[in-house]
């Protein structure tokens, strides 16, 4: 049907809790569907405890999903053996958040970038060296850096090496899990620009996992918002930012501090109270009802909301009060004095 690079269906990942600690399961990912088309950059946004990193790790099979299917180029990789997975891992690569932990400190930069090429037997000898130098150049590093070791590089440089490594095998899908969060602001800018350029140049699809909404707006074609293991809203980027429907999305957008004192101090802010509930014991009905400023009882705590698609768009949200005609709760309409 589609020529989607990735199709995730009802993905679940539960982590069992030892009986001595109470038993049960941490429902990190609790049934998500996600599709990524060729050349598309999809943002997966959420805060801590949302399960977004777990989704990324399940897709590349660093974790074994508890349930659900993951189709890579139409093939189900959920239950594939480790040996066969190696082939798929060529088309699917990942970059991680911590630039200090993802590079083997005992390997030179050239060995690090060459590793996937060697593993997948894609190049040898002089052509391998060539490829490594080409990749380093592509990520804006001088080829002399190949003789250095990770500890000699800055966080930004290490992150570039991580990108060079992952992209050396020309993957069709790159999973980027908080690739810039650990970097200083000005360094983030250069790595984000690099990611934008590389994506445009090489055409890979990308799942961009982050809590930083502003970067999502910059890089992504579509955005999915996660809360407590589920996707609560998904839309083309511009629509999500302009007309967010789900109360959580609205709160999240409102919480982003704008670097403009006049705007930041005069705009109406929605401050969510409380903390994210435990994923071991998620709330009944809509998992957001415990913090939702417009929750209506009993429906919100009794019934799980279904996905509502806004007619004529590829924008949907899981909320009892979001209707196909696009009407949705407006959190900004709540009087400012009310402590929500």
């Amino acid at each position, binding site marked *: 049907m589609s020529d989607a690079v990735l199709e995730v269906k009802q993905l679940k990942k539960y982590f069992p809790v030892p009986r001595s600690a109470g038993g049960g399961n941490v429902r990190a990912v609790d049934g998500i569907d996600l599709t990524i088309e060729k050349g598309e950059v999809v943002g997966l946004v959420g*805060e*801590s405890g949302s399960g977004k990193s777990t989704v990324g790790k399940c897709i590349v099979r660093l974790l074994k999903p508890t349930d659900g299917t993951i189709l890579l180029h139409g093939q189900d990789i959920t239950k594939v053996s480790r040996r066969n997975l190696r082939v798929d891992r060529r088309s699917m690569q990942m970059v991680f958040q911590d630039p200090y932990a993802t590079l083997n400190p005992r390997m030179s930069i050239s060995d690090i970038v060459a590793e996937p090429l060697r593993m997948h037997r894609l190049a040898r000898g002089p052509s391998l060296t060539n490829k490594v130098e080409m990749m380093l150049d592509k990520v804006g590093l001088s080829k002399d850096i190949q003789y250095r070791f990770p500890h000699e590089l*800055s966080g930004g440089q290490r992150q570039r090496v991580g990108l060079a490594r992952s992209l050396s095998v020309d993957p069709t899908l790159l999973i980027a899990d908080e690739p810039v969060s650990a970097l*200083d*602001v*000005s*360094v*983030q*800018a*250069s790595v*984000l*620009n690099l990611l*934008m350029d590389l994506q445009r140049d090489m055409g890979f699809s990308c799942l961009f996992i982050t*809590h930083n*909404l*502003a*970067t999502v*707006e*910059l890089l992504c074609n579509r955005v999915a918002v996660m809360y407590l293991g589920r996707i609560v809203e998904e839309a083309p980027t511009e629509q999500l*930012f302009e007309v967010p429907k789900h109360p959580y999305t609205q*709160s*999240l957008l*409102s*919480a*982003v*501090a*704008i*670097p*403009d*004192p*006049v*705007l*930041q*101090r005069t705009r109406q*802010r929605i*401050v*969510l*109270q*409380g*903390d*994210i509930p435990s994923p071991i014991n998620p709330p009944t009905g809509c998992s957001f009802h415990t913090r939702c400023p417009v929750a209506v009882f009993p429906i919100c705590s009794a019934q799980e909301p279904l996905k509502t698609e806004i007619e004529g768009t590829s924008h949907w949200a899981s909320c009892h009060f979001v209707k196909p005609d696009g009407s949705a709760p407006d959190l900004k309409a709540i009087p400012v004095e009310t402590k929500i």
Partner: protein
Amino acid sequence: MNPRLTVKDLSVEFDTDEGIVLAVDRMSFDVEAGEVLALVGESGCGKSVTAMSVLGLLPPIASAKGSITLDGTELRSLSKRKMQKIRGSDISMIFQEPMTSLNPSFTIGFQIIEVLRRHKDLSRHDAKKQAIELLDLVQIPVPAKRVDEYPHQLSGGMRQRVMIAMAVACNPRVLIADEPTTALDVTTQAQILEILRDLRERVGTSIVLITHDLGVVADIADRVEVMYAGHKVESAPVDQLFAHPQHPYTIGLMGAVPRPDLFVEGASRRLQEIPGRVPVLHGKPQECVFAPRCARATAECWTSMPPLEQVRPLHYAACYHPGAQNMQSNTLDDEVFT
């Protein structure tokens, strides 16, 4: 008006294996009563070292020079014991990583009570009562129950609120907040900022906010000091700084932040980059510390570190070519920032 906290010509050096490292060079600033002063900069700019100097918490390899006065009292000449009395009660601090800053082996109640009983003459019973009131003040629900919980039972946002409770327990005149929201989710950040704003309004606490997040600065700061490589490079009231940034580093920093609210159809989405890296100084700089990375650097910039000079009312910059300048075409552009 007499400022509450005055730091004058503070310089801090570290005696490391690789030689002397100059972390802070003649840093000066004032904080008035009830004011929020933001110290802004990226890693290696010296903002945390400055904060630790104020509290007298520098490690043994550091040596500091300069003056730090709190309501007229010179802190640097106080005895260890006198400084211990001031720390936690007149000046306190909240740190970036709430998990590593709270003792995992003791209940949060115990840790707050510890602060209270150290500085105030309170019975255990009264201290516990105050601890519960403090938890309520920082919006921890069901405080009477949570007071007996351990840090690992609390979320990151809650732990940060406990740290704030500990820091304000004795009504400090100055609160130093070192990256208080960096490790937290954006929705939790909004809550923490609300608590800090509330403190300033109700109690008149002066806050020194250390951060690299310009959004947080825009939200809560009254005045801003921008630091780079141990030096103050720009200083201004918050609206002035954002409306008319003068130093190329400040301008670069602002351009590096993605702005979904400024999106214009068809406009370039590239973020502004600052090439190069923050230098590690081994002695006083013989040129402008930012020159190696500056698009505006001229021969003059390589001869000496520019002094901090007034460029606009209440607005100071350490630059030989300050001003809102179009970085690409190198022409002056007054309308770059509106």
